[in-house]
């Protein structure tokens, strides 16, 4: 093509567009992008003037470098990723993204090197609410549901809450966390075993499907046993869960059965992430609606929902 202008390529926002206080379109740069375990990577992006954000919120990342034909090397629509951590210094902000390289978009992302540009849209969605009257936080997460809980652990600890995390994975080499050297993981004991949580004083109980790390069990079962042993804490605890849907559902059922406030961070296949396409629906109870339920949007009403609200089918 004869004329190819720089702004044909989706980068940051178009010239003349604006960024309000709440969310925007940003051209970030890769600071680090390194493997964490067999399928997971930790990506650090630096971006200027990123709006205020909180744990549970996510960003939509363009996992592609678009060319002027609109045909891309990577994925066409953006992919949603939880913000796994955020550090600010002046105008500059660093975002942590933990991702599992499994498809077109995430594999493209895994090939990006330091200094390369990545288009980020966000922050999106509603964050976790931190209960004022609940001083204990139980964080229940599996696999790629861990990133929002890592950032949440940092936030809770800064707010003076006591937290315990329950982390699951298929096996040891699929656990997207960094081991603390010299700390042994034994059975279902909470230990300061992983840097991400240990750095803010949060002990972790570990479970894997094959028993290659921690308990050979599913996270909700481990959590249920812990709860039985700590029944006295139930009235002062809140549950925050994120991970595969069966894990979240089982955790929510435990929380609801004990009357513990339970927040779940859900995933849906998304196109826009901004509430315009209506693709990311979650079934919620609504007595006023036909059949007693209606859909809400994971991207704008969530991704964090109160477990009581969700229809667990």
């Amino acid at each position: 093509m004869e004329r190819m202008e720089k702004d044909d390529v989706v980068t940051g926002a178009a010239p003349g567009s604006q960024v309000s206080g709440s969310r925007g379109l940003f051209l970030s740069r890769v600071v680090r992008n390194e493997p964490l375990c067999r399928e997971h990577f930790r990506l650090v992006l630096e971006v200027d003037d990123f709006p205020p954000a909180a744990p549970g919120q996510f960003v939509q990342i363009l996992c592609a470098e678009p060319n002027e034909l609109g045909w891309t090397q990577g994925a066409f629509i953006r992919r949603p990723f939880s913000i796994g951590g955020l550090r600010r210094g002046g105008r500059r902000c660093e975002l942590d993204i933990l991702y599992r390289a499994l498809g077109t978009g995430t594999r493209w992302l895994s090939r990006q090197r330091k200094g390369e540009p990545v288009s980020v849209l966000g922050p999106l969605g509603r964050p976790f609410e931190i209960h004022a009257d609940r001083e204990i936080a139980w964080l229940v997460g599996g696999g790629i549901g861990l990133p929002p809980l890592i950032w949440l652990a940092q936030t809770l600890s800064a707010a003076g809450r006591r937290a315990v995390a329950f982390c699951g994975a298929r096996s040891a080499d699929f656990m997207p966390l960094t081991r603390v050297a010299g700390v042994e993981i034994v059975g279902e004991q909470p230990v300061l075993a992983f840097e991400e949580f240990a750095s803010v004083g949060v002990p972790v109980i570990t479970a894997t499907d094959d028993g290659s790390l921690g308990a050979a069990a599913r996270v909700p079962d481990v959590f249920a046993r812990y709860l039985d042993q700590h029944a006295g804490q139930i009235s002062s605890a809140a549950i925050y869960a994120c991970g595969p849907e069966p894990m979240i559902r089982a955790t929510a059922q435990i929380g609801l059965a004990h009357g513990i406030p339970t927040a779940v961070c859900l995933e849906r296949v998304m196109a826009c992430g901004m509430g315009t396409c209506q693709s990311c629906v979650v079934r919620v109870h609504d007595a006023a609606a036909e059949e007693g339920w209606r859909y809400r949007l994971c991207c704008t009403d969530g991704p964090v929902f109160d477990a009581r609200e969700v229809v667990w089918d």
Partner: protein
Amino acid sequence: MLQAMNESQVAAQIDLSVRLGRLTLKNPVLTVSGTCGYGDEYAPFMDLRRLGAFTTKSVTVKERKGNAPQRIVETAGGMLNAIGLANVGLDRFVAEKLPVLSRLGVPAIVNVAGHSIDDYLAVCARLDPLDAVAGLELNVSCPNVCDGLIFGTDPKALAELVKQVRAVVKRAVLIVKLSPNVTDITATARSAVDSGADCLSMINTFVGMAINVERQEPVLANLTGGLSGPAIKPLALNLVYKVYQAVAKPAGIPIIGMGGIQNWRDAVEFLLAGATAVGIGTALFIDPTTPLRVLAGLEDYLRRHNLKSVRELTGRLRPNRNEPPAG
């Protein structure tokens, strides 16, 4: 170059305004139904007043939950969607969404869908008198609900629908949105124009399908979905060209062209093929500021080609001169 000039200078030189029936738009770049919500969802990203017009998600008489998920899937160069016309319904649209729309400062086109002629009449009769509604666009082409489609594929049924709706639409510009899922799109286009449509918008999505091979089941709960995005652009362009030549040009009816537009070059292609205005849909998901990029590129293009008005581009396609590429 473009940034160096201030906006009033640019405006003084180049006329971007277009007419859709009685409605004059300050520029030909619109956002299309189902991809920009009901109003201010993209306000954090851009000044929506810079759009030529805004088109809402389809509105039906009663609220609709829409289809079960999974509702979308990415495919090569595009995506399939089977949203199923999920919307708040007419009453809540008027009470909750329209006030937001009217504050945007941009002409609002309300997209209307239904199962029967009475459905369309109910929505149009209620909305037509409202100042906030500049245009009514009949979605007779949604591929994701079973019964609405008949109006989009049967020229006789479409003629009856448009005739009856025309009788209740007195103020707003009446737009008919054509389905590409037909053998001869000029037949439905002609039937819409002969029955009183002020404007045609084209096209809605192409019916498509995606299969999860491991599970051996369809990816979308609805089985099929509508294909949008750059994958459909050449197909859409061809249909716009055909309808412009056979129907719209002779009748003097404007076309809003859409289907896979990502940048100003795509937009210029649609204008050259015969569109008066262009609609941007799926590209908004990737970059909500796409309309601004398209506008800036369009202005620059007109300047480079010494054209004073964007209207000069409509249908300007020239015969292929078959010259070998230079250099």
